[in-house]
């Protein structure tokens, strides 16, 4: 276990694009998650008022809502983390080092494990980053303070972590299937942000759809992760929202996680490298 982590660390440590992309992701998360109040001030200055409510009065960073708000927001940036995973795996194919690693005595299972450990560490780091970001922002803007709030409603962070791992294993599985970094990066980007959301919206809201088909998108590989953390913003317009995580949705995501890992395993085992 330690050995596999060590191997992965040696490979990435000197790979500058990895650190640059990691830096870009961190910057993006901090920028997006810290600038919501500035954004509210901006739209206020443009004359926006939400049914008479001053946008800057929205308690976006208040405990415990901050966790659902931030995890929802930051999960749109996970595609950047996926790029890191895709590049790290596609490189092993184009340098033919996956093959060399196996020749040198790493089993395919060990190789998969080393990439899984990498994904878990990456997701853990991203979750920690968001948690720290949330703590800082809440300490500035929250109307309530106290250690007990820091860990309240953190199930959203756990869900965020689960969503990240599942998404990253999905990216890994695709890269094992077609080890071409460029193709998978563009494909995954479009699929995540356009194709699946558009298809889902069509299925759910088009009048002519059969009724039995409408709930199907909640089982899609990307949409299931999206539904894990329900959209929080309508609550600021006095609407009822789902402010907890449904076990059923967790189970769907876990099923995808298992599928992604198992498919990766099969691809590694069956293909000639």
């Amino acid at each position: 276990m330690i050995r596999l982590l060590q191997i992965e660390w040696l490979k990435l440590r000197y790979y500058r694009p990895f650190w640059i992309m990691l830096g870009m992701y961190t910057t993006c998360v901090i920028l997006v998650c810290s600038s919501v109040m500035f954004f509210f001030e901006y739209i206020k200055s443009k004359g926006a008022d939400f049914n008479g409510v001053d946008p800057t009065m929205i308690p976006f960073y208040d405990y415990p809502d901050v966790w659902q708000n931030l995890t929802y927001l930051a999960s749109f940036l996970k595609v950047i983390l996926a790029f890191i995973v895709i590049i790290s795996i596609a490189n092993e194919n184009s340098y033919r080092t996956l093959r060399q690693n196996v020749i040198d005595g790493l089993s395919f299972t060990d190789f998969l494990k080393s990439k899984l450990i990498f994904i878990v560490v990456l997701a853990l780091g991203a979750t920690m980053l968001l948690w720290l970001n949330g703590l800082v922002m809440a300490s500035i803007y929250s109307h309530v303070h106290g250690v007990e709030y820091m860990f309240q409603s953190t199930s959203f962070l756990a869900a965020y972590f689960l969503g990240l791992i599942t998404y990253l294993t999905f990216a890994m599985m695709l890269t094992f299937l077609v080890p071409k970094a460029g193709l998978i990066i563009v494909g995954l980007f479009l699929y995540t942000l356009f194709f699946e959301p558009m298809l889902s919206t069509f299925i759910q809201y088009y009048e002519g759809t059969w009724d039995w088909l409408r709930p199907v998108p909640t089982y899609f590989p990307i949409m299931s992760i999206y539904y894990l953390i329900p959209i929080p913003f309508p609550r600021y317009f006095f609407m009822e929202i789902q402010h907890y995580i449904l076990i059923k949705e967790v189970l769907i995501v876990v099923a995808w996680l298992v599928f992604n890992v198992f498919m990766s395993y099969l691809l590694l085992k069956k293909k000639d490298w």
Partner: protein
Amino acid sequence: MILRTHKLTKHYRRTKALDQLDLEIDRGMVFGLLGPNGSGKTTTLGLLLGVLKPTSGYFEWFGKTPTADARKRVGAILESPCFYPYMTAMQNLAVVSTIKECSMSRREEVLEIVGLFDRRNDPFRTYSLGMKQRLAIASALLAEPDALILDEPTNGLDPQGIVEIRHLIRYIASMGKTIILASHLLDEVQKICTDFCVLRNGEKLYQGSVVDALNEDIRFEIASQDLLQLAAIARDFQSATVIEHEKDRLVVSVAQGVTTADLNAYLIDRGVIVTLLKERKGSLEQQFLNILAEDD
């Protein structure tokens, strides 16, 4: 027994890359795997190293069903050297040491052996082809392996590089290591190997020791004042089979067991005074062509 294969077969869609290969390689052998391009050499090694999956048949390393751990005891390079281009020799070997679970301190030692010590902290991508090849050999030596697999180790090298690698392989062989060497450079195999087999279109045509193969094909070089007359007389020698004219001499191929003395006696008997008479050791190249020709 280091390695044994049993009816090892690999098909790619319709082509048979390897067909029912049986091989046995003992400890201490320097084994040459010969064959024209596309004859199944690299496929064989890919199967033995676990990166290709056999269609049928099986093989054993060290008398056991192969595992990833068994591969740690084998040093191997397959086709071109594969390393992380952005890492230095030392960093690349650190990855290999961690995989093979051997000591990091061996790295300097193997880099000394292949003569890359001075460049150990330069990135792999700045290396010449010969240096990359030498790093691959260093990496194969890292875990003090019991067996070494080298696939075309002198491919793309300049004459000096070829000599260096050949010396290196001989040196490694002298340490008592078993070596499997795939090559289409017959001269190389003849100089280094103790045993060899010939593959073509995925089938094994021949297996034997290099010494035996060379002894099967003994030739004499002879010359006299009148080469034409000599050729006519030599043609009638009991078992002379092939006669070739080279620019100032004749090359006579004879059956096994015939000595220079026999030939000399015959020529004296016919009143020919030779200006040159010497035995020429057969070449693996000739044997190789004979083996391929016999099969046609």
